[in-house]
């Protein structure tokens, strides 16, 4: 344990640096905190003067689940955090199945789901879970933009492609093997797709599994022979959504009911929501939140009430 003088000097310098930085930090931090408190009390005073005293929200919210609901909630969370600086919200995906099981296990505050809890295949759904519908969505069949030979499919043709009866694009005047992509078994988008399209059969075992709407879109956008299904909120110019029985999957057509495939999107809490959870859900349901729903390409609740 013999230290050279160089090492000693170095060590001393580091210690000094830590000390100086530490003191400096505490000083700035306490300064900052007191400034915040002053500002806060000013705002509080103003509020009470106006007779409109609102209690400041503080805390953390973790939200996870359906990648269909994710874009809505991500945007809502960002706005909500701007309006309530004391609240920190973290939003992540994982799929509807994950959202339901994680909120049920208490890992997260709010689960996002595009599956209805009552129609869900889980053998015994947690009775404590409380879903709140926040928007509607639809599912579109998508192909690569350069796929020129198919534009309109019947329900039966979709089922035959996805159960493996039709395996070649030559059936539609093109050429080459059809690459069928599906979603992981917990997906709400898959559940909705199966409910409307796969009435008599199962999706072929040869279909490749993708784990999110984003991955599905990227895959179809890069595979000229691919076909898959996607939440309408994700559709952009990188993929080509197909007409079903002659009806395009546009928001207008879903609204009028001409495009029949639609489903509810939910936020789920375990037991009655806490104050902060309730505040966030109310925000999503407010006119501001519903405007975000529409901006993101989904369908606001009021259109169907």
């Amino acid at each position: 344990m013999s230290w050279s003088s160089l090492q000693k000097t170095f060590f001393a310098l580091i210690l000094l640096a830590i000390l100086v930085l530490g003191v400096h930090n505490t000083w700035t931090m306490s300064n900052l905190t007191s400034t915040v408190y002053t500002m806060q009390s000013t705002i509080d005073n103003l509020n009470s003067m106006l007779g409109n005293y609102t209690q400041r929200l503080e805390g953390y919210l973790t939200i996870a689940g359906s990648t269909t609901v994710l874009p809505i909630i991500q945007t809502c969370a960002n706005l909500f955090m701007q309006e309530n600086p004391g609240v920190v919200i973290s939003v992540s995906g994982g799929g509807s199945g994950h959202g339901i099981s994680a909120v049920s296990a208490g890992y997260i505050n709010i689960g996002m789901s595009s599956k209805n809890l009552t129609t869900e295949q889980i053998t015994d759904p947690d009775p404590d879970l409380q879903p709140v519908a926040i928007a509607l969505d639809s599912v579109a069949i998508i192909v690569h933009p350069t796929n020129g030979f198919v534009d309109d499919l019947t329900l039966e043709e979709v089922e035959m492609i996805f159960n493996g009866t039709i395996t070649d694009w030559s059936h539609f005047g093109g050429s080459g093997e059809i690459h069928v992509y599906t979603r992981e078994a917990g997906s709400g988008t898959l559940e909705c797709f199966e409910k409307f399209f796969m009435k008599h059969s199962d999706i072929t075992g040869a279909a490749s599994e993708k784990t999110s709407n984003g991955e599905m879109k990227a895959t179809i956008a890069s595979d000229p022979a691919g076909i898959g299904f996607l939440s309408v909120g994700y559709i952009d110019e990188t993929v080509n959504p197909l007409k079903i029985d002659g009806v395009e999957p546009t928001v207008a057509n879903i609204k009028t009911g001409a495009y029949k495939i639609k489903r509810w999107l939910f936020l789920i809490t375990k037991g009655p929501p806490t104050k902060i959870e309730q505040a966030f859900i109310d925000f999503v349901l407010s006119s501001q939140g519903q405007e975000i729903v529409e901006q993101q390409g989904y369908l606001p609740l009021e259109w169907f009430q």
Partner: protein
Amino acid sequence: MVNLEGKGGMKREGQRSLLEKAIEIILFVGALSSIIIVFLIIAYMSLEAYPALNLDFLLGWFWDPKKEMFGIFQIIVSTLYVGVGAILITTAIGVPTAIFLAEFCPRNVRNVIKPSIELLVGIPTIVLGFFGLMVVIPFIRDNFGGWGTSVLAGWMILAIMSLPHVISISEDALRAVPNSYKEAALALGATRWQTVKKVLLPYAKTGILASVLLALGRVMGETMAVTMVIGNPRVAWIPTSILDRAKVLTSTILLDWSYVEIPSMHYHSLFGIGLVLFFIVALIDVTATYMVKRGVIK
């Protein structure tokens, strides 16, 4: 000396042995904790996997959680197919590289090649996966046909990943051959290639084989990059060509984990897959270690 120092020396000796003891205990606790952690993980996995462990699980043909079918035989075969194939590529490129680096390479060239190979180790697997997704898969789709996501893509990505390990360990094994052997061969009139073939390779055989086996264990456990390029059909099958897609043990766990119900047969089966994978990799590693030891004794 001891007599001259007398009591003072003895005391210092005692203090020193106390310090020795303390350090010894600290080191022992460190070693013990790693053993305990390994033991805990194995025990936990076995406990969670226990309800799923039966012959239907190991030899069952279909893995389709939606129909409550949890057979992993096809997945095991796919995993071996993907792993062994990748290692054959690695060996075909890695061992000649190691021979070149150890015997034929001029020093200044080696100073360029060796660091570049070692740089490969630092590439995170997810980055390799991205590379596979954006470069390898379109390349395969455009030039060989098929889906692009394929066993071949998995082989290429895994080969890149395991190359540096095989090269470094094989080169070390070749360099460990005593100089006198080499000099004797050269003195007998053997050419450099004859020396490599008749003296170096037979001597370093076990070391090279061990490096290959260790790399095999590593690629079988690799998850992220493989899942991204291998295609993952909804129901696993045994791939019939190298352009076929496949589902391996690790990608099955990764894909199913996000929605598995806890607890359920599906959940226990996923732990079962983990345990099976652990035993395959452990078996390979033990074999490699055994071979290295035998090589050293010989």
